[in-house]
């Protein structure tokens, strides 16, 4: 699938291709309207005429597609055979292959679940993994794990696809040549011996941040043999400033543990805690627990105020959002502090919107002492963090809404300094033997360190990695790493809760466990990961004698009891409020660049994961690439449209990158997502997007000021799933003011929904079953994190189609998260709305299907029968919600064997030419029905949970039997805020929405251009 390459990546400046976003072409009168359709409208509508002149631009370009001659003949044969035989062919004879020795408890349709944990940035999240006949097929959250609480984000859920990735490295390499495993072990032993005389003064270990107790112990053991060795750590998304800030404020390194459920007022300074925090799932649950509005009495919502450079899902939940350059954040913090009587007030005074926002925040915080919280993001420096810690102390929030804990990491260090030291040692030949345990540092390290070429100087360099990636290319030895679903280990959550990582499948590609590799350095080349971890914990878990029992307990729970890191006193002992030396800094007049982890591929480690590449990024809904996020103002100044490329120069580095114009972006801030533009990711991730690490200097890991930005003449087609971000003044997304909700006002639409059976035919009661399934989606608590989209994809064997097909409007996701903007483009109101199939009782799609491929079941499901569908696509045309998806080509990969291992055997794999859509996870419903019927009991409320609802960290999706008035979902549907989307069409959808409840006070008007006092 080479067509996934984004155009800007090809060095040759190809002719500027057709404007893809013709969708944005609009009537001239649009710009005068208060409501705007999309930003291109505001910036005038030349494309309109460009398009008009070009009539149908893509025409000729497409001529080549289809197939090569030989291929063509082959497929033709197949097609004609199909055409001919479809009628009268009888199925081919197949074989049954029973076991030689039937294993216990492995049953065809009875999947098993195992508890394990996945580490991201070193911190673990507890998971339950479903295994069908020994194949891990689906990853779900572990309810008993504090960092998951039953939810799972996109990264965790997509890990199962990574497991089967055929591009993962399979062999030990030495200078690029395949070597036997044994040779590597010998080399390792040799290397250790080489360093023993000098106690390993020249030996270096480079890891990510390590929380695994077992691994930490091994590293210590290695230290014992080589006392003079150095252990370096590098995480591109480091949390050091948080810890260091705590050091300044509290006198010791600490990890703040936020109790959002207790906070009435939350003020976040450049902290996307719903996405960036290691325990984001827990925080999301806690945060949205105050946003449910799911009972009449509920009226203690929390208020969120956010100041941030770029629109994040956190910012989208804010009542008062202030777009502001990252470089100004410090000044903002100090000003806020000063207003709350803490520290000196900066000379520069706030004005306009900033003033308004500050006053709102100050007032709110004052009002809710002890029940408020101020947070600041890892991108800000330690001083700011210290100030904020102090601020929370002063407001009496410490101990209430935030407690401080020891960091869970085995050895928290300043990753930047650590990496700098390593690079220096390599340069000065002080280090000539280095072992890298995962993490692909060559790709992620600051550009100016040039780690890659420095590594070449080491005599011995060994890299343990999942893929043969950029780092492999710079190391002499490459060792294939085990996927976490393949091997034993352990990992701690951000607050220390420890889980045993247990494998669900034997290593597919002969990967090596990190523990085994370390054991080799400890001269125990034969040691098994299982034994190592088990032995380690045998010593820890002794207290009551029965180790086996506790071990099994730990495995089945997925978390080891009371392993959380101890709380620290909340006194500001030792720590003193740091001076506000640099608090006067401003972003200045130039452009500012902010670096952020990619919303779907994080720091680049998921670049080869098709599910994540194709997961639409929040707001922009861009897939397969990372356009630079610019503000409407900047776009006007640079005269660029979506997809037009710009050149960014900073400290000699330069990248050329297409832009996405983001409403709510700080005026002169450009946000670059990291992790894209991989050169050695694999067949999926290679060359997707632009490598922005090239621009990321050690001096400004998180943001740089005064970068040089110029317009380039190139253009890239952004593969977007959603091109049109205006509500068009329609009522499918409904908002209730808080007061109205309090008074129990209904979420009225323009037209009242028709009464039941308000039809020409009169009553037709065809939903005869005892159970009537229905769904409610809560628009107030949904944060738009897309966990549901990925959960659905994994559960229902939904193929990913690639950038080209997405840009042609053929993505396959059964549930999508729509984003709409309203109001001032500089700081708009943001709405998100998950849209699955509505399972209408009067489904328009059913009426028009000529072959009964889509019909209504007695329990109210809008069924889609793939094997009956002939693909007229009429149903999709007639679906007002456009939730149906069509296999325009053969999307399901039936060719790659390992790609099929991930399929859920309970769901049919769809072939070319067939319509598909959300089924309410009918396979789960039927399984539950059979179970209940067997046990002679009714299905319990909450027993059937669709994948999307199960994954949702905000509990925004509820599902159940609407025929039972006592069920949770029925209760929600009785709320006044409950409404049917497009209900006036008399479709009678079974999926209804709880209107978004908004604070009556409008968010403060935003500063359209920065006030530079």
């Amino acid at each position, binding site marked *: 699938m080479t067509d996934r390459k984004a155009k800007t990546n090809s060095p040759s400046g190809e002719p500027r291709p057709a404007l893809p976003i013709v969708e944005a072409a609009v009537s001239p009168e649009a710009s005068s309207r208060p409501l705007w359709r999309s930003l291109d409208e505001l910036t005038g509508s030349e494309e309109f005429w460009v398009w008009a002149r070009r009539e149908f631009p893509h025409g000729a370009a497409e001529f080549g597609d289809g197939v090569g001659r030989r291929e063509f003949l082959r497929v033709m044969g197949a097609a004609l055979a199909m055409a001919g035989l479809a*009628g*009268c062919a*009888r*199925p081919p*004879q*197949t*074989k*049954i*292959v*029973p*076991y*030689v*020795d*039937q294993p216990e408890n492995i*049953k*065809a*349709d*009875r999947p098993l679940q195992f508890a394990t944990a996945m580490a991201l940035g070193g911190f673990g999240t507890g998971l339950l993994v479903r295994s069908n006949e020994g194949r891990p097929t689906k990853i779900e959250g572990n309810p008993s794990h504090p960092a998951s609480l039953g939810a799972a984000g996109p990264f965790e859920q997509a890990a199962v696809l990574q497991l089967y990735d055929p591009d993962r490295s399979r062999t030990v390499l030495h200078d690029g040549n395949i070597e036997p495993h044994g040779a590597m072990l010998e080399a390792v032993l040799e290397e250790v011996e080489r360093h023993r005389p000098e106690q390993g003064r020249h030996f270096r270990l480079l890891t990510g941040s390590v929380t695994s107790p077992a691994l930490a112990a091994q590293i210590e053991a290695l230290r014992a043999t080589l006392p003079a060795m150095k252990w370096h750590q590098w995480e591109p998304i480091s949390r050091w400033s948080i810890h260091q800030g705590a050091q300044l404020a509290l006198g010791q390194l600490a990890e703040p543990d936020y109790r959002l459920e207790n906070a009435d007022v939350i003020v976040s300074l450049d902290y996307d805690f719903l996405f960036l925090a290691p325990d984001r799932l827990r925080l999301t649950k806690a945060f949205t627990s105050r946003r449910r509005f799911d009972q009449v009495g509920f009226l203690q919502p929390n208020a969120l105020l956010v100041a941030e450079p770029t629109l994040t899902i956190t910012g989208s939940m804010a009542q008062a959002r202030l777009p502001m350059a990252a470089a100004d954040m410090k000044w903002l913090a100090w000003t806020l502090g000063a207003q709350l009587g803490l520290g000196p007030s900066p000379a520069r005074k706030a004005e306009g919107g900033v003033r308004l926002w500050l006053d709102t925040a100050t007032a709110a915080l004052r009002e809710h002492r002890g029940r408020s919280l101020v947070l600041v993001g890892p991108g800000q420096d330690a001083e700011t963090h210290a100030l904020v810690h102090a601020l929370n102390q002063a407001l009496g929030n410490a101990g209430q809404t935030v407690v401080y804990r020891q960091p869970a990491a085995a050895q928290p260090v300043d990753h930047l300094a650590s990496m700098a030291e390593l690079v220096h040692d390599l340069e000065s030949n002080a280090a000539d033997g280095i072992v890298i345990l995962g993490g692909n540092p060559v790709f992620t390290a600051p550009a100016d360190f040039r780690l890659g070429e420095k590594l070449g100087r080491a005599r011995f360099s060994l890299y343990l990695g999942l893929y043969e990636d950029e780092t492999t290319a710079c190391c002499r030895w490459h060792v294939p790493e085990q996927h976490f679903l393949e091997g034993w280990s352990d990992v701690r959550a951000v607050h220390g809760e420890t889980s045993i990582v247990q494998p669900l499948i034997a290593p597919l590609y002969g990967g090596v466990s990190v523990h085994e590799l370390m054991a080799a350095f400890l001269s125990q080349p034969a040691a098994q990961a299982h034994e190592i971890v088990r032995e380690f914990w045998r010593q820890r878990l002794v207290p009551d004698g029965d180790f086996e029992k506790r071990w099994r307990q730990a495995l089945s729970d997925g978390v080891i009891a009371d392993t959380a890191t101890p709380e620290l006193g909340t006194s500001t002992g030792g720590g003193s409020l740091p001076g506000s030396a640099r608090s006067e800094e401003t972003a200045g007049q130039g452009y500012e660049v902010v670096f952020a982890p990619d919303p779907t591929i994080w720091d680049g480690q998921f670049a080869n994961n098709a599910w994540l590449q194709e997961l639409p990024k929040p707001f922009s809904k861009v897939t397969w690439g990372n356009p630079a996020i610019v503000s409407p103002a900047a776009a006007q100044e640079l005269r660029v449209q979506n997809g037009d490329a710009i050149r960014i120069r900073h400290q000699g580095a330069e990248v050329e990158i297409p832009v996405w114009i983001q409403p709510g972006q700080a005026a002169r801030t450009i946000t670059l997502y990291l992790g894209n533009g991989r050169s050695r990711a694999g067949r999926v991730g290679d060359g997707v997007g632009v490598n922005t690490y090239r621009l990321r200097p050690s001096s400004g890991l998180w943001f740089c000021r005064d970068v040089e930005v110029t317009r380039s003449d190139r253009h890239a087609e952004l593969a977007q799933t959603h091109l049109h971000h205006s509500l068009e003044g329609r009522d499918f997304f409904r908002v209730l003011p808080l007061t109205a909700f309090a008074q129990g006002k209904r979420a009225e639409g323009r037209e009242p929904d028709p009464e039941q059976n308000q039809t020409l035919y009169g009553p037709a009661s*065809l939903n*005869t*079953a005892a159970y009537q399934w229905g769904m409610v989606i809560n628009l107030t608590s949904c944060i738009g994190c897309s966990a549901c989209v990925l959960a659905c994809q994994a559960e229902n064997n939904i193929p990913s189609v690639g950038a080209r097909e997405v840009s042609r409007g053929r993505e396959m996701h059964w549930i999508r998260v729509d984003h709409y903007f309203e109001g001032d483009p500089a700081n708009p109101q943001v709405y998100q709305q998950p849209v699955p199939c509505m399972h209408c009782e009067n489904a328009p799609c059913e009426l028009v299907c000529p072959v009964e491929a889509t*019909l209504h*079941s*007695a*329990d109210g*499901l809008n*069924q889609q*029968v*793939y*094997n*009956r569908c002939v693909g007229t696509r009429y149903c999709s045309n007639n679906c007002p919600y456009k939730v149906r998806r069509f296999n325009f080509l053969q999307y399901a990969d039936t060719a790659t064997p390992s790609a099929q291992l991930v399929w859920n055997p*309970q*769901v*049919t*794999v769809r072939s070319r030419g067939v319509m598909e859509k959300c*089924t309410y996870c*009918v*396979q789960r419903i*039927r399984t539950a*029905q*059979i179970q209940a*019927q*067997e046990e*002679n009991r009714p299905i319990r409320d909450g027993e059937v949970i669709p994948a999307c609802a199960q994954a949702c960290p905000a509990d925004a999706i509820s599902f159940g039997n609407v025929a039972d008035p006592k069920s949770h979902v029925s209760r929600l549907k009785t709320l006044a805020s409950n409404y049917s989307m497009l209900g006036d069409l008399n479709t009678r959808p079974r999926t209804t929405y709880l209107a978004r409840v908004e604070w009556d006070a409008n968010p403060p008007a935003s500063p359209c251009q920065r006030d530079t006092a």
Partner: protein
Amino acid sequence: MAQIFSPRVSLWFKTLLIIFPLALVGGGVAAYRFSFSSYATQVGVPVDQPVPFSHQHHVAGLGIDCQYCHSTVTKTADAGMPDTHTCMTCHSQIWTEAPVLQPVRNSLSSGLPIRWTRVHNLADYVYFNHRVHVNNGISCTKCHGDVQSMPLMKKQATLQMGWCLECHRHPAAAFAPPDAVFQPPQVFTLDWRLDADPEAKRAVLKKVADVPSVRELTDCSTCHR
């Protein structure tokens, strides 16, 4: 002017004109009948197996319960095929030298499974569940026929959708007495009818009460997902 056509030609032409539409209709009917023919459906056609396993001998002769080999039939969708060890429980004692059992012994020694030829083959998009049928008292024989009289296994039902619908439209008629699913002799009571014995009938009707309605049973998603 001379005649262009002889009377004979004229007659032939007329006949052809009459035959042609009839032939069309006839062809259609034939095609329809063909789709039910034993060639198309393989009904009643014995299938060669690596080991000529005789249900007649094992079930009727030795009276072995179905579940002895198809052990998961009450637990999972899949009835379960016996692993090599199951065969060897007996055949390590008897017929230890029988040449027909050579494949079984090979499998045990080599650890490679026996590859049986599938007799009842449903399309992959059909989700049939043995568990729910059997536990609700649908006798094995209802679909698999009088297995106990089959030296070599063969289909007795077309397994076409229409055939499935027959039972799903008239569930009551499909029931065997709940206790008669496996144990001989009831398992073989092909002639059992609902009214046979009132006591069983009561039991069955109780069951019918709590199986889903016919409309649910004939819903697409009952079998297709």
